[in-house]
């Protein structure tokens, strides 16, 4: 039930230690990008029933931003990765 999250830095920690920002699949557009692109980034969500990538912040732990890949229906957690590592990989 997403009650326990395996932080790559701190180990298995309870959900209460985290603050959740939400959808990590969207990418911030360039400042001069079109209004359309910004609207899409700020407001529109694919909101899948199934696999979903999210930004979780380990506020009461290492204070690192993490990318948690979860199932929004079964609440299974597939992977938890440091946000910076994900960003480097994605070239963001």
């Amino acid at each position, binding site marked *: *039930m*997403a*009650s326990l999250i395996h932080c790559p830095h701190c180990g298995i920690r*309870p*959900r*209460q230690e985290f603050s*959740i*920002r*939400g*959808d990590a699949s969207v990418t911030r557009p360039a400042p001069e990008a079109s*209004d359309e692109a910004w*609207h*899409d980034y*700020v*407001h*529109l*969500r*694919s*909101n*899948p*029933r199934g696999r*979903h990538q*999210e930004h979780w912040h380990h506020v009461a732990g290492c204070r690192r931003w993490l990318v948690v890949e*979860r199932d*929004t*229906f*079964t*609440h299974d957690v597939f992977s938890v990765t440091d946000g910076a590592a994900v960003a480097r990989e994605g070239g963001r």
Partner: protein
Amino acid sequence: MAWAEAAFAQVAARADAARQHDGENGTGMRYSALSIVRNALSGNLNWKRAWRQPEPKPFYDVIIVGGGGHGLATAYYLAKEFGLKNIAVLEKGYLGSGNVGRNTTIVRSNYMLPANEPFYEFSMKLWEGLEQDLNYNAMLSQRGVINLYHNDSQRDAYIRRGNAMWMEGVAAELLDRAALKKMLPFLNFDHARFPILGGLLQKRGGTARHDAVAWGYARAADRLGVDLIQNCEVTGIRRENGLVTGVETSKGFIGCGRLGLAAAGNTSRVGQMADLKLPIESHVLQAFVTEGLKPAINHVITYGAGHFYISQSDKGGLVFGGEIDGYNSYAQRGNLATVEHVMEEGVSMIPGLSRVRVLRSWGGVMDMSMDGSPIISHTPIANLYLNCGWCYGGFKATPASGWCFAHLIAKDETHPVARFLRLDRFQRGYAIDERGAGPQPNLH
């Protein structure tokens, strides 16, 4: 004689069928004190089914997806107020299996923003005449809704909200600590961190029995000829030349002239069938009910130091809830961390709650919008209409939402009190953000 017997049997069968049909669609029966007495005398064996169980027809002028409060109310008003015939509601489970049967039943019209308040007040007025209109006891109880405040700035915010309500013609009352102490002596007034200083009261606010609202609308819609089709999941939206021609369902293809979506927590999934990407996230909200107690809490009370609200059902159980779990979820069950948090809030507001036993808890999947306000709107597809974004406040909106959505579908024109609730407001920069939390659904 064989032929006479056969003919007789045929006539009898036809009469039987007619009687059954009449009974089954309920047209023969209005609920009244007399009908209760009459049925009691015949051992309560002759109550008719409240609605039919029709098979889908190949085509409807209007199809509504979702047999929750909003879908049922929409169908009812389409038939009753806007004179449409040939309407169907398609529901993937049973009627009322979604959020309409899972909420904490609070109805109120104490919003602050002028884009919201007239809409919710229209709803409140419809609630006040609903039971007569539907010929159904929805157990509306205008017991008063009180929002507590704990510091000066919160008091100022409530004064502002109260004034905003008065500007829309809705009465609000500021209660000070002394008045509250008399009304609600069980509150934790001297909490070290969150002392209770007063509250904002809307006397006309209260509760209604949630299932009864779904059933009342369902029965009333059925009596006007609306087909309520249960166990019928919409799996696709068929389009030709940019217009919707019908829906694929678990009971086959059903054609329609106009399509209205009222799928609450499943809005994004249904929207995706028409290639719509929407400003919605699905989140789970939990609710709780305790063992039955003698009358103890006479109002709906909301905590100002956290997200917690409580009332007592007519059966005696304390019904309460808190905030959403915080992450996207399509599961109708929640997280224990939230359960603990809600209990802590409750006990911090009413210490006596620690002695009460919780009987049940459950969750519902809600359509959280990007600004915390709902959407009743046209879409980029001309004959497709959208009703969603109710967050955790859509129960109180049921009558007005149904009315305004029916208005939109029937006349292809927005109802005046819903004119701000457009889908394109996000793009155009007219978000309706009561909380000022920004485009972050889990904060609304």
